[in-house]
């Protein structure tokens, strides 16, 4: 019993002793396109918050839905009022894990990664998987990813009159420049 406890102690202490390198950004860009041939619909948000752990690959995003800027004021209003109901569901979030095998944060370079996790939009949580790229240069890491989001998966209903103008699947793009979290 003594031995086991001791082993556990040593294991945990040694695990905790490894400096957990974490990276963060508060100015990540998340944009999406959901237009069709009839209508250009695109928006971007330049204040996404994201943190990832370089040791475990744990990755999280949080973004304010109201922070998405559209070219057209009315589209932005409809996006918030009718589709995303952003007063009710102010945040969109992602929690997941990156597969960091073979990536060295000490060595500059461009590494492909796969990301798996839960995307929470409009109060609905859904598993997603995507691939992306991590570009390590010195103490900063740039993360780029693109993935489709099926609008109906998140309980967002599109009325008949505008059904032809809004794509069924939005293409979401992520571009974040991370710095070391101290």
């Amino acid at each position, binding site marked *: 019993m*003594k031995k086991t*406890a*001791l082993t*556990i*102690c040593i294991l*945990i*202490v040694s695990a*905790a002793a490894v400096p957990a390198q*974490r990276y*963060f950004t*508060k100015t990540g*860009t998340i*944009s999406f*396109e959901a237009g069709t041939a009839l209508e*250009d619909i*695109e928006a*971007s948000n330049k*204040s*996404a*918050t*994201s*943190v*990832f*752990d370089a040791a475990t690959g*744990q*990755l*999280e*995003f*949080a*973004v*304010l839905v*109201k*922070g998405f800027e559209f*070219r*057209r*004021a*009315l589209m*932005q*209003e409809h996006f*918030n*009022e*009718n589709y995303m109901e952003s*007063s*009710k569901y*102010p*945040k969109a*979030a992602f929690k997941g894990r990156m597969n960091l095998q073979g990536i060295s944060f000490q060595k500059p370079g461009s590494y492909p990664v796969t990301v798996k996790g839960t995307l929470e939009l409009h109060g609905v949580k859904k598993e997603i998987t995507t*691939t992306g*790229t991590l570009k390590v240069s010195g103490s900063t890491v740039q993360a*780029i*990813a*693109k993935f489709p989001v099926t609008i109906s998966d998140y309980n967002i209903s599109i*009325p008949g*009159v*505008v059904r032809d*103008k809004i794509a069924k699947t939005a*293409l979401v*793009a992520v*571009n974040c420049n991370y710095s070391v*979290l101290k």
Partner: protein
Amino acid sequence: MKYLAAAFLLFIAPLIRAQETDLIGLVDSAGSGTKTAITGAFKSSRVINGHSIEFIGKKVLDVRILHRFGRVNDGIGELFGLDQASMRMGFDYGLGKNLTIGVGRSTAGKELDGFIKYRPVQQATGGKGASPVSVVLVAGSALTTAKFAEDARFTSTKHRLAYYSEVIVGRKFTEAFSLQLSPTYVHRNLVIEPTDDNDTYALGIGGRLKISKRVAFVADYQYVISGLNKDLYKNPLSVGFDIETGGHVFQLHFSNATGMNEKAFITNTTDSWGSGEIRFGFNLSRVFTIGKKKSKPIPES
């Protein structure tokens, strides 16, 4: 053994907890402490007749076609008023997020009107200095271009002019309910009735109750405080529905006012709800985004 257990509890347990912390919580998570503007208090930049605390957005042209039909109590012979129509065509343009200018022309009195609308304070949540209300200032004028009677004594341009200014204080209380108050001052250089004052003061109240995502019940009332002969003039009351489709907002309503600018509906309303002298009317608003398209290329992966 005892010590070990104690050590485990004291030092190790918090460490295990630490491993489970929300990563995003390590940095100030998005939104907490940041000021967020409250938008969408009303569907349109007008409640019905009067201005609302809403703005149309920068570089947006709002083309507005307004109709007020005849009195409903005129009966079937006039198709409940639909045989007659008074109309205002208006163009509003958003110079900025908080600044709009607009012009309009009404068939009643061949009246040309223009206004400037500015929002110094916008309702917001979170963060320091977030205002619980929006404050909007509107100033405008109206010019009658209809010919005066041949025996009219005052016929110069200044006699055709009227001005108005108002302060709107409004709040979106809940997602569904918004309310605003708008003290208004109207100055007419020439009044029709000798019993009227050149200066009219009114207090406007406007509200919205959202019924569904696209339909809202709206009401708009102006209480005339002073300046008008109360036996002749009535306070304008309009009630109706906002119906929103893609880029349009239809506002269907019943009102005792025919005027479609502040001067006209505050000082020229003679019909009374009590006598059934109400009219059907609609506001149709279509917005166009003017200006160059800002391309936001999605980065390569």
